[in-house]
Structures are given as structure tokens and as C-alpha cells.
């Protein structure tokens, strides 16, 4: 009796399994036949919500038969994870592109397809495309999406309480800092050096553009006409070093989230910012805040801003859904996408030439500097971070050390220059 029962059970289980596998195969076939599911690889896991509820539905209104999936890794793991998936052939159809060499490397290895023939690429200027083009500028391999702008965010209530006005020059900036420090209730500058990149990005690159005159200095550095040991760069480091007494207790062990909290809790007056902080502050700060551009050295000087091309999207060269992927990229180049992206993620500014209305007042202020100041990108990103030692890593290291007081500005400049000169021809002279 028992054996009979188990035999019948086994047969039934076998049938069930067979049916299941047939159904699964049929489903897989049906899926392959429609062949219109695009997967996006990204590091913006913070934005998954916006992609899933705003951007993708808007795209589907135009292209109802292309399904899009947004798949994000944590930012610090993205490059490694993406490379592993590309090597294993399991990466998604659309790949969010880091600026410059990380993506150029993918293109050279044949992982990214050229987007020269994708409709909509003509909506972007050469500067916007520069971060995702070959060195000769002939081939572009990612559709530019957005840039981030540096500046200073300040707590308006503290400024009102202490009767301060947003500074325009470095001298005014220091006067403001002194007043906040003299009052003693608030930390003048919210910034820490434990993560190192804060010092380099929010510090050195943020204020530096005013010293090396934006693109002019950046290009001279790439061509070898300027060196890090030149005055503008040393001065930028000197200015950074002078911030140390105004930063919070134990800033050497203060990390980026600590810095953000210090500001959003209303305990610090000025926050050297990236525009991506705006939506976070909007959510967390219960006081009014505003922004001012990096102060210039002398009153009346032309102002520059770090308007850094940060994010783009390209096509996996091995994608099975090339046409659908191109359709998606064309849509990314459209003013409609720019409008949604700029307003759902204030602080990420579209790079297309289309005029976009940014509704968040602080984000609008950041993007407004494009009209009054000259834009430039971070000077370590193009070409200069190709060798060993890596210039970007070096800048993180020396900027943090300058602020920690363990390195003099001149030594920092010399270390960056020596590292560059050890492998980069134009700097070897």
C-alpha cells in the first residue's frame, strides 16, 4: 500500500515538473519574442523611486511596448560590479556612465556602443559631450544626462540672527566666518576630512575654479602649460588650510553624513555643497536655506563655477535590444526628460541645450550661476587621472592633509605635481 502510494506520488510529481518546465520554456520564448525589456545599470540607488514612478512611466507613455527596469548598485560598488557583469555577459542593456576615463575604458574594451547616430545627440554642446567622447572628440559613447554644480549653502536663519549677508569675495567670506565664530553658538563651516573626498571636491574643486580661472587653467594644466606648483593652485590650498579653525570639533574624524547632519540640525552656518545636497536638505532641514557662489579673490573679478558633467547613459554593445535602447536614449535627449529630471532631482542639472525651468529656488540659484559665471569641470577628471599615481586619489589625500594641518599648501602642490610629472609627458619638463 505504502509503496503504491509513493509511486503514484512520484509519477504525479514528475508530471507536474514536466508541465512546469514546458510552461517556463513557453514563457521564456514569449519574452524573447517581444524582446523589449531594457534593464538600466546605475549607481543612483537614491533615485530608484524617481525612476520607477516618474521617469519610466513618462517614457512608457511614448513607447508603451518597451518595458524598462531600473537596477541600481550602491555608488561605491558600482564600477566593480558593473565590470564583473560586463565580463560575465550579464550586464543590462543600458549603462549609466561615469564621466571620463571609467567610461572611456569601457568603450575601448568594446562594452559600450557609439551613440553618434542616435537621434537627439545634436541637443548637446561639445563641452557637455566631452566627458563621454574619445580624446579626439569624434565618437561619443554615452548620452549626457546631468551635471552637478558646487557652491555654498547657508542657513538663512543663522545669517539673519547674526545679521550677516552672503559674501561675494574671499575677504568677506572670512569676515562672515569670524563673526560666526565670535558669536560661538554655531559651527561656521560644516565639513569633515575623514572621507577625504569632501576636502578635495567640496573644498579644492569648489573654490579652486576662481583661482585657476576655470577652463582656462584646466586646459593649461592638461597641456602642461601650468603646474600644480603654480600660484593659483597653491593659493587654493592655502585658502583651504585657512578653513580649519572654523570647522567643527574633531572634523578630522567627521564623515560626510556627519557633515550633512551638522548642517540640517541647524548647528552649522555654512555648508560647502554639491548641488546634489539640495533635495536631501529640502527633506531634512526645517529651516530656510539659500546658496552663494564660491567667493572670488578680488571684488569685481570674473566668477567661475565647478559645473561638473557627472552622469550619462550609454548602450551595452552586446545588448539584444539595440533599437529599443536607442529609442530610450533619444528620449533621454529630449526636453521632456530634462524637465522631469531637473525637477524630480533638483541639484542634477540637465546638460541639453533645451531651456529648463527649475522650480526649487535653491537649485534654480545654483543653475542660475551658469548665466553669470563661467562653467568648468573638475581639473583631475580629463586625461590627468590616467596614470599611477592617480591624480584624483592624490588630490583627495593632499586636500584632506592640508585641512588636517599635516601638510603645508606648498607641499601638497608639490606632491600633486610630482605624482603627475612621474607619468604624464607634458608635465615632465
Amino acid at each position, binding site marked *: 500500500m505504502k509503496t503504491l502510494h509513493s509511486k503514484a506520488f512520484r509519477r504525479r510529481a514528475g508530471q507536474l515538473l514536466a508541465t512546469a518546465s514546458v510552461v517556463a520554456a513557453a514563457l521564456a520564448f514569449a519574452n524573447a519574442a517581444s524582446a523589449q525589456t531594457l534593464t538600466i545599470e546605475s549607481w543612483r540607488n537614491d533615485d530608484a523611486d524617481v525612476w520607477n514612478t516618474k521617469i519610466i512611466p513618462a517614457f512608457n507613455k511614448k513607447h508603451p511596448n518597451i518595458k524598462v527596469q531600473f537596477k541600481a548598485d550602491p555608488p561605491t560598488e558600482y564600477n566593480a560590479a558593473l565590470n564583473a557583469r560586463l565580463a560575465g555577459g550579464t550586464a543590462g542593456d543600458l549603462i549609466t556612465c561615469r564621466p571620463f576615463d571609467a567610461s572611456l575604458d569601457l568603450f575601448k574594451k568594446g562594452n559600450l556602443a557609439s551613440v553618434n547616430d542616435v537621434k537627439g545627440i545634436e541637443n548637446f554642446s561639445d563641452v557637455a559631450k566631452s566627458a563621454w567622447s574619445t580624446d579626439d572628440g569624434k565618437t561619443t559613447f554615452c548620452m549626457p544626462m546631468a551635471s552637478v554644480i558646487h557652491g555654498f549653502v547657508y542657513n538663512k536663519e543663522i545669517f539673519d540672527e547674526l545679521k550677516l549677508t552672503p559674501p561675494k569675495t574671499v575677504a568677506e567670506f572670512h569676515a562672515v566666518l569670524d563673526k560666526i565664530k565670535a558669536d560661538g553658538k554655531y559651527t561656521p563651516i560644516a565639513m569633515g576630512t575623514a572621507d577625504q573626498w569632501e576636502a578635495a571636491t567640496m573644498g579644492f574643486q569648489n573654490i579652486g575654479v576662481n583661482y585657476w580661472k576655470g577652463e582656462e587653467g584646466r586646459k593649461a594644466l592638461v597641456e602642461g602649460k601650468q603646474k600644480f606648483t603654480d600660484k593659483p593652485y597653491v593659493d587654493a590650498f592655502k585658502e583651504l588650510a585657512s578653513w580649519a579653525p572654523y570647522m567643527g570639533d574633531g572634523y578630522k*574624524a567627521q564623515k560626510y553624513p556627519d557633515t550633512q547632519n551638522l548642517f540640517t540640525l541647524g548647528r552649522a552656518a555654512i555648508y560647502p555643497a554639491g548641488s546634489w545636497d539640495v533635495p536631501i536638505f529640502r527633506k531634512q532641514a526645517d529651516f530656510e536655506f539659500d546658496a552663494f557662489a564660491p567667493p572670488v579673490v578680488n571684488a569685481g573679478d570674473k566668477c567661475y563655477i565647478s559645473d561638473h558633467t557627472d552622469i550619462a547613459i550609454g548602450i551595452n554593445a552586446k545588448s539584444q535590444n539595440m533599437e529599443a535602447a536607442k529609442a530610450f536614449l533619444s528620449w533621454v535627449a529630449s526636453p521632456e526628460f530634462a524637465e522631469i529630471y531637473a525637477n524630480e532631482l533638483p541639484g542634477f542639472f540637465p546638460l541639453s541645450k533645451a531651456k529648463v525651468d527649475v522650480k526649487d529656488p535653491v537649485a534654480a540659484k545654483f543653475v542660475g550661476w551658469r548665466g553669470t559665471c563661467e562653467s568648468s569641470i573638475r581639473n583631475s577628471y580629463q586625461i590627468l587621472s590616467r596614470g599611477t599615481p592617480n591624480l*584624483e*586619489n592624490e588630490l583627495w589625500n593632499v586636500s584632506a592633509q592640508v585641512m588636517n594641518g599635516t601638510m603645508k599648501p606648498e607641499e601638497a602642490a608639490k606632491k600633486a605635481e610630482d605624482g603627475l610629472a612621474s607619468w604624464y609627458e607634458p608635465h615632465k619638463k
Partner: protein
Amino acid sequence: MTDLTASSVPVTDVVPTRSRFPIHIAVFLAPALVIYSVFSIYPLIDTIRLSLYAGDETGARSFVGFQNFHTLLTDPNWSGQFWNALRNNLIFFAIHMVVQNGIGLGLAMLLSLPRLTGGSVYRTLIFLPTMLSVVIIGFIWQLMLNPLWGIAPSLLKAVGLGSLFGPWLGQESTALLTVSLISVWQFVGIPMMLIYAALLNIPDDLLDAATVDGAGPFSVFWFVRLPLILPTLGVVSILTFVANFNAFDLIYAIKGALAGPNFSTDILGTFFYRTFFGFQLQVGSPTMGAAVATAMLVIILIGVLIYLFGVQRRLQRHTF
């Protein structure tokens, strides 16, 4: 009767089965051997093979012999970081040997006191951090030591020692020591347990005999217990050595892959990670990374060999 049955078993039936190749042994060894080969030996050999290649920008790889190792040891841009990481790793190891294993030994002695109440509670509590995730350990300690809202500065201030507090995780001079001590705090349970087990194995009559012969508690420890647990201390040392030279996670969780400030917390694991996977704008190099990994393997191998031939052979095992 019994004699008859015994002698009726034909001897010739038994012999051939004995002389045949012992297939069952191969069968029983196969699973472990296959798994170990596929997941451990093959990757190891392939890593060594990969370290002899170099990739160009299109991703094509070509054989370059020992070029990668030459670069790693002679190019100042690489060797500076490599020796720095190795030196930090040795300091990391030394701190573990002295503090972790020292405290582990002390705790094991205390736990093996005959009239200790609540011994199992202490044992569990001290062993607990070992089972927590490194990410949680890193997060908790960063919060406690945080100069802005941590409990450490307020505690020190409460007892009037506020001036002693510093941003320990952020200073070049103290960061490595602090991270090491956090790791010690997490893993002190392991040497404690191993040594505790060894201490329990010592028969009471030996200790009683020593006491009767007039030995005080210190002499009993120094001349009876310590020699008897030396083999365990050896095992603990080699486990610490291998674990420390493969360490990565805690430093990555607390200081990131750039292991700041100024690479003062950079150890071989984080150096390998940056080289292999890349970092921010630094593009990763699998071949150079494999060279670093192979160098780590050699370092660990040398350490283990020194232990095997220099230490373990001199140790006498006592069985009771």
C-alpha cells in the same frame, strides 16, 4: 562448535578484496577533493597565472613574465604603497598578537577560576561581538567615537578628562591603532575560547601536585599551565597571522578603500582592493591586482612556514 564455524570461513575469500584498489577511499575523498580543487586550488593557480600577464586598454592580455612584480617592488609609485601597506599590516598584526591574544589569555585564565559565578554569561558576552557583522561593528564604533555626537567625548567629559579626547579615527598618528583595537575588541573571544578549552584539558592532579610541592599561583601558571597550553598559543598565533594579513572588511567599512588619512590605515587587503577593482577615477587592473594577491600569498606562506619549521616542531605535545 564455535571452532568449526570459525575455521569454515575460507581464507581465500577475504584476501582478494583486500588487495584490490581501495575504490571506496577515492569515493569518500572525491567530494572534498573536487570542491576544494574547484573553489580553492584552481582560483589560486589561476590568480598566479593572471599575475604574469598585463592587459592593454582594449582588454587584450599578453604574457609579461615577472614584469608586474618588478613594477610592484621597484616603481616608487607602487612600491611606496606596497611597503606602506605591509608595514601597517605588520603593526596591525603586532597589536593583535600583544593585545588581543594577551587579553584572550587573561580572560581564559579568569574564566577557568574554579569558584567563578556566572562564567558562562561572561563567556557568551565576550564572544558575542565575534558573531556580529563587521559593518555593524564599524558603524557602532564610529558612532561611539564620533567627536560630534559620540558617547566617548561625553563620557570623558563627565569624568573630567574631556581634554584627553581626540578625533582618533581621523588622525594619522592614531587611526591605525584605533582601528586595530576595534578589531581586537571584536575578535578577542576567539583566542579566549581556544585557550580556555586548552586550560580545561589540564588535569587537576598536575596543578594539585604542583601546589603540594609548594608552587604559588604564579609558579603554577608559569611552570605548569603555560607550557601545557603552548601548542594552543601557537595555533592562536598562526590563526591571527593569517586572519590579519587577509584583513580588509573592517578598514573598508570604517575608512573606505583609500584608507586615510594619508594611507595610514592602508593594509594589504585595501591596497589589493584598490588595485584590482579600481577606485573613483583609478581604473582597476585585474593583472596588477593578481600580482598584489600573489605577493600577499607569498607573505602569508613565508609566515606560515616560519611557524611550521621554526616553532611548531619545537613544541612538545603532552597527552594525558
